């Protein structure tokens, strides 16, 4: 993991001082609301429905146990004893007091953390693959490049007042676990006869206009990464729309310009910049790679370890052992080193808002990381936490320990592993609540055998079209909408981001539903899937084969559906 040098530390101290001064001037009335607004946003500070919300950057999702312990104590001392993992791998505090935030930032800086550029119209925290460095399908570890881009974009003087926010994601694996084609810039690392470089995607995004990125450049040599990013950002800064915030993202500029002429503009600007811009030297890249070298894996007797696991999971009949087997199947994954597994701690037990984690749990994650995973964890887009380097021989012990803290819901990758924004309960932007809808779905689908039988299925709920939960790239996406002051929910089907060859935006299936009807509507959709699937076909495969028609027919026969719910017949309140 990257460790701050003296310059990093110095800059962070200076930022804390700067923001302390800005906050004091604001509180004394010497800095206007209008002037303070972008300054506080660039420090991750929103004024929310109930209290300020502070977003802490977790660069590309990496956290050390020391940082986790600090987050635990901050949750206790400055908040109500919990925090929230966001869909961009960051951490949010929901209840800090404005006047305490400078001190909170100072505490964060002690563990090399900050809130810089986690909000506002600037380059946001770089996101990446939560399995970086350990995934079996990885070609190149993206983290050294993530850190180089993090540094380059941090306190960037030219790009602090962009038309709108700007997000960069980097992936180095065959499967895309970072949804790079739904970012302003998506970088896919690759290696060919010209050496190491990037396939550059541009102009993707979610929000009210979900757009898949366009391919800007098939191969960018790694030495040119930063000058090329500078060219894209500069063109965007100068030519992105500033007259309408809903049309200000890069995706709109790319679409309006057309990818070919946009690429031309970038090329011209880049050639102008490149000669004046220091190249990324091999030495700098190598130095950065050293921070992310593999930990000291033990040489495990794979045969014995796997044999033991098989024995534990095949022969046993005790319910607890069945639970272990389920967990092993759902919540652990392949690792590049034989005998090791990745373990996902589920933050999705029924009834807890997705991604919420208490101070005690944070402490526990730190202890688990120290004991079983070299003291490091990763946060995920799905709002869970990954222990990336667990020896298979430790799995049973880890499971028993993690169970005490509620981390072992064996639902990773299933429909109850719901990604959910804070929604109308917390967020000032939301049109509708999202947390209660997620809980109602979890409660409706509490039969895990049924859930497992459905297989890999993503379900994401956003409380407004800003799409923080990424509902438009979910197999089943739910969007909260406001209809004349009442909360309704639109369902989208068929979105997906994992397959780099065909990322897809989901399609709205039809008129929206009331919150009460959502679980039943989902049940109808799942019944259609179960009915139509041909052996082994996944939910998303059925949708690509059949389209939305059979789902529509089942949901809206004559646009008023009679449902069987709680063994009584009632009409589903379709809002047309």
């Amino acid at each position, binding site marked *: 993991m990257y460790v701050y040098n003296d310059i990093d530390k*110095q800059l962070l101290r200076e930022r804390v001082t700067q923001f302390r001064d800005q906050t004091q001037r604001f509180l004394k009335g010497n800095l206007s609301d209008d002037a303070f607004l972008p300054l506080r946003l660039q420090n991750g500070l929103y004024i929310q429905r109930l209290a300020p919300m502070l977003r802490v950057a977790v660069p590309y999702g990496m956290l050390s146990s020391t940082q986790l312990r600090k987050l635990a104590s901050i949750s206790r001392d400055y908040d109500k004893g919990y925090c929230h993992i966001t869909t961009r791998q960051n951490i949010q505090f929901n209840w800090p007091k404005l006047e305490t935030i400078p001190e909170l930032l100072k505490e964060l800086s002690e563990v090399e953390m900050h809130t810089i550029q986690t909000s506002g119209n600037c380059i946001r925290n770089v996101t990446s693959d939560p399995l970086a460095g350990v995934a079996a399908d990885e070609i190149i570890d993206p983290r050294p490049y993530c850190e180089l881009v993090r540094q380059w974009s941090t*306190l960037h*003087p030219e790009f*602090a007042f*962009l038309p709108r926010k700007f997000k960069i994601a980097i992936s180095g694996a065959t499967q895309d676990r970072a949804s790079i084609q739904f970012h302003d810039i998506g970088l896919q690392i690759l290696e060919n006869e010209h050496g190491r470089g990037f396939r550059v995607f541009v102009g993707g995004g979610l929000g009210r206009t979900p757009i898949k990125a366009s391919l800007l450049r098939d191969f960018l040599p790694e030495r040119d990464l930063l000058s090329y990013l500078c060219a894209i950002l*500069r063109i965007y800064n100068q030519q992105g729309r500033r007259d309408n915030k809903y049309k200000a993202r890069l995706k709109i500029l790319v679409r309006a310009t057309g990818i070919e002429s946009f690429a031309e503009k970038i090329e011209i600007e880049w050639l102008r910049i490149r000669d004046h811009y220091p190249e990324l030297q091999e030495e700098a890249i190598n130095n950065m790679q050293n921070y992310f070298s593999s930990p000291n894996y033990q040489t495990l007797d794979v045969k014995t370890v796997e044999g033991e696991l098989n024995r534990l999971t095949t022969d046993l009949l005790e319910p607890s052992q069945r639970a272990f087997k389920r967990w092993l199947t759902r919540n652990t994954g392949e690792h590049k080193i034989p005998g090791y597994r990745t373990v996902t701690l589920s933050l999705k037990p029924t009834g807890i808002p997705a991604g919420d984690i208490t101070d005690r749990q944070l402490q526990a994650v730190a202890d688990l990381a120290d004991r079983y995973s070299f003291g490091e964890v990763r946060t995920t887009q799905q709002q869970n936490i990954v222990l990336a380097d667990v020896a298979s021989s430790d799995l049973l012990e880890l499971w028993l320990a993690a169970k005490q803290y509620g981390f072992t819901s064996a639902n990773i990758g299933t429909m109850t592993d719901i990604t959910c924004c804070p929604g109308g309960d917390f967020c000032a932007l939301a049109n509708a609540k999202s947390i209660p809808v997620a809980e109602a779905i979890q409660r409706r689908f509490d039969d895990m055998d049924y859930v497992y039988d459905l297989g890999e299925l993503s379900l994401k709920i956003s409380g407004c079209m800003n799409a923080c939960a990424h509902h438009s790239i979910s197999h089943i996406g739910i969007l909260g909408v406001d209809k004349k002051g009442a909360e309704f929910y639109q369902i989208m089907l068929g979105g997906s981001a994992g397959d780099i060859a065909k990322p897809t935006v989901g399609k709205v299936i039809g008129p929206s539903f009331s919150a009460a009807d959502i679980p039943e509507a989902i049940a109808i959709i799942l019944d259609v899937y179960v009915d139509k699937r041909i052996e082994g076909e996944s939910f998303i495969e059925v949708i690509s084969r059949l389209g939305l028609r059979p789902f529509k027919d089942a949901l809206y026969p004559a646009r008023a559906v009679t449902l069987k719910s709680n063994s009584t017949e009632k009409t589903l309140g379709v809002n047309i």
Partner: protein
Amino acid sequence: MSNINKVGSPERVYKTDKILIKNTDLCNDPWRDSEKNTEKPIYKSVSLCQWRQERGELLTEEWALGITLPADSDLYEIDLLDDLDKIDLISIEFSTFTDGRGFSLAAQLRQYGFTGELRATGAIILDQLYYLYRCGFNAFELSANEDVDIILNALKAFSKGYQPGW
């Protein structure tokens, strides 16, 4: 280009409630003082519009020439790049502090080798001074109400930057 006629027009009146910080010092603005007092100024400042119309004459005179550009100017469309070495002052006028186009314009001017005074004017706030400076500005026109010590501190908000700067 819509701002051309609005800002930096020849009739522009320099308000006395402004101060100028250049190279981290409070100083007089020779362009302002010169235009006020002399028929044939030693310092001449013009709008982009004037520059485009009178480029030839403006370059033949001996004066120190200053041009004011709106922050949304497209450097490749304003016929300035070939004459950068003949211009002594480029003022970039910000219409609102949240519009970051002027930051890129300044970086581009420095990148093309402009070595004269690069001045930020208009709607800028103290909290931007360090970033403006890092983009190549070396002069700042600010409200006379601002405390000079606070301005100078804001210019030194950070001791280093991760990016190449000017």
